[in-house]
C-alpha cells in the first residue's frame, strides 16, 4: 500500500473521510494497473544453462489441474485460474488479501524448447518447469583436423 498520510481513525470529519476514500480508490486503481492485470502474477524466476532452462513460479494454493502450461518455440505461457474459496453460511470475512481470479504470463526463453520433453513439478506451492533445449539447436563442437 502507498504510504497513508492521513489516519482515518483520528479524523472523524467528513472532508477527510472523503479524502481518504479518494486516496484509497486512487491507490487501488494504480495498484490494479500494475498488478491487477496479473502481468506480475505469479512471480517467476528464470534460470538457463546451455541446453536447458528452469522456470520457477510462486503459485500457492492451486490444484495442478487448474494450471495450464504451453510451450511453442521459445515461448512459455503459464495460465490458470484461482478460485475463490467456498465459505460456509454466516462466515465473516475480516481480511482477504490472497489473489483470486485468472492469471496469464508469457515468458521468452533464449532458445527453442523441445516441447515433448518439458516437465513440471508442483511442490509446496512452487511450480518448477524444466525446459530442455531443442536437439538441433544445441551448439555443436567442430573438430579441426590438421591438414
Amino acid at each position, binding site marked *: *500500500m502507498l504510504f497513508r498520510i492521513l489516519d482515518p481513525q483520528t479524523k472523524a470529519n467528513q472532508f477527510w473521510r472523503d479524502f481518504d476514500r479518494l486516496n484509497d480508490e486512487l491507490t487501488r486503481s494504480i*495498484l490494479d494497473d500494475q*498488478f*491487477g492485470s*496479473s502481468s*506480475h*502474477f*505469479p*512471480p*517467476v*524466476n*528464470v*534460470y*538457463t*544453462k546451455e541446453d*536447458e*532452462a*528452469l522456470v520457477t513460479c*510462486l*503459485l*500457492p*494454493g*492451486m*490444484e495442478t489441474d487448474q494450471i495450464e502450461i504451453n510451450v511453442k518455440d521459445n515461448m512459455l505461457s503459464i495460465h490458470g485460474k484461482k478460485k475463490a*474459496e467456498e*465459505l*460456509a453460511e*454466516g*462466515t*465473516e*470475512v*475480516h*481480511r*482477504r*488479501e*490472497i*489473489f483470486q481470479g485468472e492469471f496469464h504470463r508469457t*515468458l521468452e526463453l*533464449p532458445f527453442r524448447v523441445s516441447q515433448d520433453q518439458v516437465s513440471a513439478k*508442483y511442490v*509446496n*506451492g*512452487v511450480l518448477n518447469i524444466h525446459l530442455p533445449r531443442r536437439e538441433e539447436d544445441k551448439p555443436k563442437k567442430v573438430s579441426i583436423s590438421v591438414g
Partner: protein
Amino acid sequence: MNTLTKENKQILDEKTDVKESKTQVRVYSPNVDVYESETSLFFRVEMPGVDETSVEISIEKDQLHLEGKFHIPGIDRGQVRLAEYKEGNYSRKFTIGKAVDTEKAVAKMKNGILELTLPKIEPKKTKIEIQNS
C-alpha cells in the same frame, strides 16, 4: 494488493553498509485471508516454498505470530535470467480480540498455504449469589 509478497519495512536497504558479522535475511509479509465463523477463527497464509517443518506458529496472550522459512535449494540452476523473488522468511503478527482455545488449534500446510483454525471459547458466566445477612 495482489503482489504475492510485500517486503517488510524492517528490511535494511541493501545499499546500506551492513556489519559483516550479520547476514541479512529478507522478511516478507505474506498475504492472508482471515475468516470467522460462529465457532472458530480461520487464517489462510500464503507461504509458497515453505514446507511444514519450517512453519512456526506461536500464540502468546492475544498475539498470534506466524512464521515460515523459504529456502531455495542451492543446486546449480545455471544463469539467472530473471529473478522476481528471492528466498527469505515469511512473518506476520496478529492481535486476536477473541478468546481462543489454543490447545485445540489445528494447522496444516497445503500447497504453500498455511491453514490455521482456532476454535473460539465461549466466555464463562459465573453467577454470584448474594447472601442474606
